[in-house]
Structure formats: structure tokens, C-alpha cells
């Protein structure tokens, strides 16, 4: 896949996740748009995975701690061939496996998440197991900035540094907003870089919507041998749809038909410019 095709993929994934949120009349729109570029890069440039052999013990692991942004994950997995995209027509419907959070009943999903602050500790366990077995696969987890205050994250930050888990990558989707408002008003996590460096992690900051920056950070690790990797991805909630960007009402807002059409037209206009 060329760099241009990868950029076009980001637009397609945005259109797809909006389509299924619109159809289901449910979803975490702003956060999914915020993290979908990260997922695009992970699944198309970084993770060593095979949809036809999704339990291979040597595969890279991706655990989505911010499980509520499952729509971004589902459209990425579908696009990558883990299941037919048409399955997503059942999103959030009675008895569908495609529910509002990741579940292992869906091919390609590594862990059941949804409660916040759970992904990283599981990732620490997976990374320790890889070290014990002298395997080279890596473990990635995506953390939302709103879930950073969960104490379990900080327990895991300590453990990851203690065990020198340089095969572990925590990516912070740092869009600076959460359901109530801005992070710094709800619970200040400023100076997160300093905090993480003090916890013994190697830290890099990237533009979380620049695919090349994400790829550079995620594919050239470890950032420092013997240290777990923390990637601060500066993002925008609702990225790609002008009226959603930075507007907290789109945390789990569902577009009307007019809004949906407007969003698609904006994305199509952006697509032409790639």
C-alpha cells in the first residue's frame, strides 16, 4: 500500500465508521474519528498479523483500552479482512457480536474491553509473557486521555518500567477532551510527557493524524532499549468533520441524515485533495 493509498484509507475508514454509527444510531463518534488514523497505521503498516491466522502465538497484539471507540476498530478490522464489512450492519443490534465495545467474539479482537484502565495491565502481562518466552512480537495498547486518571494505568506504568518492557507500546489518543469537557477542567493530566518519563518510559510525541509520524514512532522501536514506549499522539476529537472537531457534543453524538450527508461530502472533498 502506497502512502497515498494509506491516506485514502483513513478517509474510507472515517466514512465507514460514520456510516455504521449513523445506521446503528449509536456510537462514540468523536473519539473514533480521533483514533482512526492510529488504527489505520497500526493495522496497515505496523502490526504483524494475519486475518486468516488470527491466533498465531507470534502475532503482534493490539489491545484497545479505550474500548468505547470500537467503531474505529471494527471498520479497520473489517477493512483488513478479519470479517466481512457487511457484518457491521448488525452493530448494536439484538444478539449481534458487534456491540458497543470490543469483544473476542469478533475475529481479530484480542481482549474484551470497555471498562476503562484495563487494557494496559493486560498488555503488561502479554509483554512479560513474550519476554519470558523470548519472542519478538510486540504489544500495543491504545489509551484515551480521559481514562488516564484510572489508577490501574499507573500501577501498570510502574510494572512496565520495572520489567523493562521495551516490547510494550502505549499510545495515548490525546485529543484533550472527554465526555464532560476538556481534560484540564475534568482532571488535569498536563505534563504527561514529564510524568511518563519520570515513570521510566521512553516518550515520543507525534501528530496523531500524520500517518508518517505515527508509522515512524511505532515501527522504529524500541525508542530506548529497556524502556517501555509511550507515544503521545496529539489528536483532535471529531477529526475530519468540521462541525464535529473539538465539539464535545460529538463524544457520542449521532448525526442526523443531513449532518451525515454533510460529513460525507466534507470527507469526499478532502479525499480529492489527497
Amino acid at each position, binding site marked *: 500500500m502506497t502512502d497515498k493509498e494509506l491516506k485514502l484509507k483513513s478517509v474510507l475508514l472515517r466514512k465507514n465508521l460514520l456510516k455504521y454509527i449513523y445506521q446503528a444510531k449509536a456510537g462514540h463518534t468523536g473519539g473514533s474519528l480521533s483514533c482512526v488514523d492510529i488504527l489505520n497505521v497500526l493495522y496497515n503498516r505496523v502490526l504483524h498479523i494475519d486475518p486468516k491466522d488470527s491466533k498465531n502465538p507470534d502475532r503482534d497484539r493490539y489491545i484497545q483500552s479505550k474500548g468505547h471507540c470500537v467503531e474505529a476498530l471494527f471498520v479497520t478490522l473489517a477493512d483488513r479482512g478479519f470479517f466481512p464489512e457487511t457484518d457491521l450492519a448488525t452493530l448494536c443490534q439484538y444478539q449481534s457480536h458487534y456491540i458497543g465495545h470490543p469483544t473476542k467474539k469478533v475475529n481479530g479482537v484480542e*481482549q*474484551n474491553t470497555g471498562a476503562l484502565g484495563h487494557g494496559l495491565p*493486560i498488555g*503488561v*502481562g502479554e509483554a*512479560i*509473557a513474550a519476554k*519470558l518466552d523470548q519472542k519478538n512480537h510486540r504489544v500495543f495498547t491504545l489509551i484515551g486521555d480521559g481514562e488516564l486518571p484510572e489508577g490501574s494505568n499507573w500501577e501498570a506504568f*510502574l*510494572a512496565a518500567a520495572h520489567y523493562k518492557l521495551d516490547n510494550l507500546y502505549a499510545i495515548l489518543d490525546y485529543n484533550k477532551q472527554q465526555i464532560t469537557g476538556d481534560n484540564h477542567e475534568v482532571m488535569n493530566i498536563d505534563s504527561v510527557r514529564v510524568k511518563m518519563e519520570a515513570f521510566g518510559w521512553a516518550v515520543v510525541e507525534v501528530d496523531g493524524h500524520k500517518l508518517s509520524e505515527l508509522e515512524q514512532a511505532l515501527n522504529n522501536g524500541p525508542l530506548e532499549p529497556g524502556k517501555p514506549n509511550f507515544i503521545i499522539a496529539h489528536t483532535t476529537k471529531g477529526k475530519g468533520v468540521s462541525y464535529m472537531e473539538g465539539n464535545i457534543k460529538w463524544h457520542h453524538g449521532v448525526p442526523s441524515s443531513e449532518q451525515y450527508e454533510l460529513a460525507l461530502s466534507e470527507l469526499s472533498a478532502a479525499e480529492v485533495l489527497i
Partner: protein
Amino acid sequence: MELDKIEEKDLQMGLANQQVFAETLEALAAEDSSIIAVTSDSRGSGKLVPFGQKFPSQMVEVGIAEQNLVGVAAGLASAGKKTFAISPACFLTARALEQIKNDVAYSDNPVKLVGISAGVSYGALGTTHHSLHDFAVLRAINNIIILAPADNYETEMAVRLAASLDQPVYMRFGKKNMPFLQEENNQNFEIGKGRTVHQGDDMTIIATGETVYPAWQAARALREDHDRQVKVISMHSIKPLDTRILDELALAGKPIITVEEHMVNGGMGEACASYLFQKGAKNPFCIMGIPDEYTITGSQLEIFAHYGLSKEGIMAKAKSMLK
């Protein structure tokens, strides 16, 4: 008090169940390098210091951080390790309850959760250190086996069986030496099957964990001093419950007492009652456990005696129900 003195000369005193747990885990780890013990600064009370010395690469220490203990254990289990997460039962099943519910049970990561110094083992350390809620909260979570072995035999069997299962399991152990309860040639241990440790058909005491021994003492005294024949069942498997044996008891219709080192709300007794009475059982029935009040302070055995979970207390209750 001499409540812990073995009065019956035909019982052989064993070790603390959590000591047997640790020794069994060592034996398993020696044969299987995929056995991993995860501890939260709990290797001392878990009797796992020798394990850590013999198998340093099979022990993961997370410090005093129970949520991380269970999350990390879930990750290790997901990666194929036979993972035992060991922590005092009080912290493991309260502090890390959400991790147990989501990362272990819901995610079907086959962690073996080991609650040490369970029930009121910590006695005078008080309510912060008691686990009188663990059966209740875990019974309300799908996809986890709950075991409370009574003696060293049941403990060893439970640990070996759990290690072989690709399912989440919770086991709780105490720290007091326990006698072997095997007078009735009952060397069989199965998950979901109670173990009869004393025969009788006038009534039945269903006990679990460290209360099986005082129930056995009460039954023995009732036989010797009062010629009453009381069956005692070690219901070591709280979930799944032994419904076959409950069906038999319902058919016989004789009085039933349940005894547990747990609050009366939501424990083994209520599990039995729920099954029996939805089946239309008419047995006189009584749940003995720790009542819903601020728990009295004292040693484990003083607390047992205070709430009637002793030989004398169980005898008195049994006699009142046999009249």
C-alpha cells in the same frame, strides 16, 4: 481458648491449606515451566518464598497493586501461561473485582485466582482484612469456578485440578493448620461434587472451607454423646454447586444446616437454599455464617465461637433442629 486443639485422636493434623497450596504449586511448577505465580507483595503470606527461590523466572511480582495483579495475570493467561494470581482474599476479590469480572471471567482468560488468609483468618486485624463477601460477589459473575477446600487433601486436589483447567477459577485458603477429614474413605475430589466427610441420616450439615472441621466435630459429638447420626458434606465447590447431592437431601426431607466462613448474605448457604426451595424442597433449613453486622474482633476461632461456627455452636443448632 483451646478451640483449635484436635480432640479426636483418629484425625491426623495437617498443614495450613495455604501451605499445601504453595507446596503443590511448587511441585507443578517443577514439571511445567508455563506455571506462573503472580504476587502482590504477598509471597510471604502465600508461603511462596521457596517458590520464588526455586523458580524465579516463574514468579511475577507486581507490588501492592491488586488491580494490576489481576490485569497482568489475565495478560499472561491470554498468552498461554498457566497463571496463578495470589493475594489476600480480602483485597483480591474487592479491590480487583472489576478486573476479575472483565479481564478474567468475561474475557475468558483462565487465571487461577488464589485468595489467601481468607474469611476471618486475619482475625484481629479487622474488617479491612476479612473476606466475607467473596463467595457472594463471585457467585454473581458468570464464568468462574469458586472453590473452598476444607483440608489438605482437598487443597492439593483443587490446585492440581485448577492448573489443568482452561477456565477461570477462584480458590480461597486459610492459614490455620487443618486436620485431614478422611475417615469415611472419601478420596474423591471433583469440581461440582460435595465430599461426605461424616455419615448420618438424621440430618445434614453442609459446610465449606475451614468450617467443615467444626461441623465434623459437632457431628462426631452428636453421634457419641446423643446417638444422633448427622451427615457432614464438604461443599468445597460453591460454583458449580453439587445439585445432585441437594436433590438427594430434598428427597429425604431431613433438616439441613449450612455453615460457612462468610457473611450469611449471598454465600454457600443461600446458594443451597436457592436451589433447594426453587425445587420445592420442604426441609427445615438454617444458614450459619457471619451475620450482617460489624464483625466482632478477635482471633479466627474466637470469631467462629462468637457466631456459633464452632463445634458447640453447630451442635446446639443441630440439636434444636433435630427436636
